[in-house]
């Protein structure tokens, strides 16, 4: 594991590079696009394990944080969705340039899946395979999901305030970000990549909608792997989630 900052010095991104197992080295890189908020905290270990497991299979792997999140520069109130899409591009270029791999695959978890798909509208990124793990199918669906959680009243800090900022489990989504996200709906476009692997931990209305929208694609593969996926849960002690069957399924799918 090699932690480092990359990108422009004023908008630096934090990344962790996992070098490939030399005995199985491939000419392929994998970028992991994280999710957001407490989900990001809970999935950090899972992302690290997934990265290690893929590196063991010979892939060059890069994990990173979007601007205003994690260790990357800035604060959430200063960034918008176009910044995050730009960050994905910057990270892909970083992975490509530093490792000299010809092929790039991108994995996105939840919001990371939505963003990675949106970034993949640009064919210049030359993403070969897109792996969407419990992806949000649209910004609106995400907003509604969070508002539904807020209505349960588990925490007085979970609110939509008078500025239309949605506060959930300690992380804010500002009005601008919510509006930006509301313009992305995976059912309305097809990412530019050779193959899509859509993996879900539990099936619901949204996962079925996306499956219906994309199932006519030649290279679309859908799999339901039973595992926990209660991403909106939060506990007092930073309990993290390790859905091993999903990590194994993704590794197996990419390595086959």
């Amino acid at each position, binding site marked *: 594991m090699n932690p480092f900052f990359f990108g422009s010095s004023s908008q630096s991104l934090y990344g962790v590079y996992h070098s490939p197992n030399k005995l199985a080295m491939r000419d392929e890189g994998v970028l992991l696009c994280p999710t957001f908020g407490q989900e990001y905290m809970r999935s950090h270990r899972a992302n690290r394990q997934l990265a290690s497991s893929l590196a063991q299979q010979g892939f060059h792997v890069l994990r990173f944080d979007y601007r205003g999140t994690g260790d990357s520069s800035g604060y959430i109130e200063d960034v918008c969705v176009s910044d995050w899409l730009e960050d994905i591009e910057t990270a892909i270029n970083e992975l490509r340039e530093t490792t000299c791999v010809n092929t790039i695959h991108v994995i996105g978890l939840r919001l990371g899946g939505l963003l990675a798909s949106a970034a993949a509208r640009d064919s210049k990124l030359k993403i070969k395979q897109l792996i969407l793990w419990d992806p949000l199918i649209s910004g609106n669906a995400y907003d509604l999901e969070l508002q539904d959680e807020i209505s349960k009243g588990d925490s007085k800090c979970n609110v939509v305030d008078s500025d239309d900022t949605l506060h959930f489990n300690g992380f804010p989504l500002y009005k601008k970000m919510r509006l930006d996200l509301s313009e992305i709906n995976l059912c309305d476009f097809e990412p530019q990549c050779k193959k899509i692997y859509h993996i879900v931990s539990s099936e619901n209305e949204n996962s079925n909608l996306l499956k219906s929208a994309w199932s006519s694609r030649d290279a679309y593969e859908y799999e339901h792997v039973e595992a926990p996926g209660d991403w909106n849960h939060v506990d007092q*002690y930073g*309990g993290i989630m390790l859905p091993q069957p999903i990590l194994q399924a993704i590794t197996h799918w990419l390595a086959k």
Partner: protein
Amino acid sequence: MREIATTIGKTTPLTAIITLPTNFDASKPAVLILNSGLMHHIGSCRLSVKLARQVADAGFLALRFDFSGIGDSPPRRGTRNFHDSSLEELNEVMNHLQKERGISQFISYGLCSGADASYEIAKRDSRIIGIAQIDAYAYTNKKWFIKRYLGNLLNPTAWLGLVERLTSRLSPVSTLGEEFYQTEDYQREHPSRDSVAAGLNSLVQRGVYIYNIFTGDTIEINYENQYRDIFSDVDFNGFLTLEYYEELEHIITSPEHQKLIPKKICNWVQMISASSEKTPIEISA
């Protein structure tokens, strides 16, 4: 202010982020920001990042890092428990900053298990001149019981809560696969009150400043100055700053407190750093 990703140690290094002030001054203490439970080095709700940037803007080097096996630091081989390995790794981190940056004084900050580690390292290492803890070791007392139980007798909401708790015991419990959740191998155990009192006494005698913040989620604390009452046998002599936020959650989800707490800790860091002589003064954060 500049952030630098680095690794500490050779064989199985620890991952750290140094936040370097624009005008770095090695004579000022560095602020060490520790993990809380299994949360990685950005801290609960990114609080550690905000704190590091604020103290760096105030001229102090801040270092956030992951203990081995947590966040971006790989696990190290060995049979030591977290208590022992965390102290050894803290020592390693301080040695690194001392050697590489010439810093000889440190302030340690942590929430929950990070608060415990801050207290434990301060007892052992004289380079620590201050500890800031959120939800440190705490104990109930007589007044706590009175407030907790007598106050509830006439409170209909409390009775309703009791009924809900009793009925929920009869409800089905979630069977979501526990094997998918990683629990801490660090089980938080409170040492005896007497041993903590002895520890606090030794810290104060050495002139270590202590800033304790308690949230409303600390079960053992339910009123403002309870910590002083619990440790009435410790002569804090002005070295303790104590705050209690009844409405605040343990993982600091409130946006107001996410701004307030780093600011208060930063003010406290500046003040204790400024008091070069350990004159007993009440520090107001």
